[in-house]
């Protein structure tokens, strides 16, 4: 399984849990339907922590991990990033949109509305 897919599944477990999880707990949840090394899960969580996507706290001699943002918050932030221009108003060449030029403030409102409507 590709590393990216594993990262995504680890994040899904953390988001679904709703509470901080230890490496062992994440490993248990993921190995219900497949063979997976404990150290692999540990490495993945460590990588995600280094990237700032999950936070690591020490409790009872074990690290516990939580997502830095909820799934909805992260999605909204990402959409906003995808749709906003650089500070000087120049469209960033980093991303190309299908719809063309968009106004960030209108989009923030739309994203907020979409989140509340769910």
């Amino acid at each position, binding site marked *: 399984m590709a590393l990216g897919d594993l990262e995504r599944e680890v994040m899904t477990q953390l988001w679904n849990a709703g509470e901080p999880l230890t490496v062992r707990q994440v490993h248990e949840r993921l190995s219900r339907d497949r063979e997976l090394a404990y150290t692999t899960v540990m490495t993945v969580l460590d990588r995600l922590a280094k990237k700032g996507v999950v936070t690591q706290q020490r409790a009872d001699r074990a690290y516990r991990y939580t997502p830095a943002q909820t799934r909805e918050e992260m999605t909204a932030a990402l959409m906003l990033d995808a749709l906003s221009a650089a500070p000087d108003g120049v469209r960033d060449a980093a*991303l190309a949109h299908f719809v063309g030029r968009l106004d960030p403030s209108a989009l923030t409102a739309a994203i907020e509305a979409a989140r509340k409507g769910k």
Partner: protein
Amino acid sequence: MTALLLGALGLTLSLVVPGVLAGARWPDRAPVAAVALWQSITLAGVLCALGVVLAGPQELVGELGADRPAGAAALVFALVVATVIIGRLLVSLVRVSLRSRARRSRHRLLVDLLDTAERHGELPAEVPAGLRVLDGELPFAYCLPGRSPRVVLTGGALRVLDAAQVAAVIAHEQAHLRYRHDVVMESFTAFYRAVPGPLRSRAPLDAVHLLLEMVADDAARRRCGAAPLRGALALLGDAVSPDAPADLGDAAAERRRRLDRLAVSDRPSATVLLTLVAVLGAAALLVLPTVIVVLPWLDRALSAWPL
């Protein structure tokens, strides 16, 4: 004289020509050639500026009839300014590309973590490798260029578009990725940021962006037909515009132009002719500053030839 000519040409290229070309409608029918023309206009402008800097001081000293040290100083000054111009452009290019690379890699990480493509049965049967679905109601689509590219659709886009329209949108984004439109946009952005305030113009940036959208539209039209693409453009645009502020009028006009050109199919001969003329123009523009610099020099060299 050389410096004056080059200066006039450079100012025309950076202040007058962009406005004229941005207002023209023929580029809609030959967008690839028009992008080439924009590139050559920009590059020729830089060449003119360099030419002025290199030829100007020496000519000035010559006119004033000054002695040798002044001539040498003028030459040094010219070289320094030319180096500054080139350096500024290069620094700007590196900055823009580093910045967008960092933004892309962060964005790619997050979009991979949030991907829900597996849960969307309505996606086309052969899902392209880099396709990601973001669970959000706002319907839009975009692509993430780079060595490991992604095409991103939102859940909202999948909800409003039918299968053929989704395929057309994916084809459009893949055309952006395949032809590396991001590199073209980055070079124009870098140039824009490097030019000093009073001389800088948004016209090339905006015009080239729209032209690249048209190039991607053409690729999507070839693969999926015009009808689904038009449908997708109309649906995705409308979904964002209801409470759009006034300055989005531009975006609406741009979409109108894209829809209009997709409604007609040009005769290939007309497109070929336009493309040929534009490409020849682009080539001529690049040659012109060089000729202006080289001709007087050649003239002098020939008259000094000991025969």
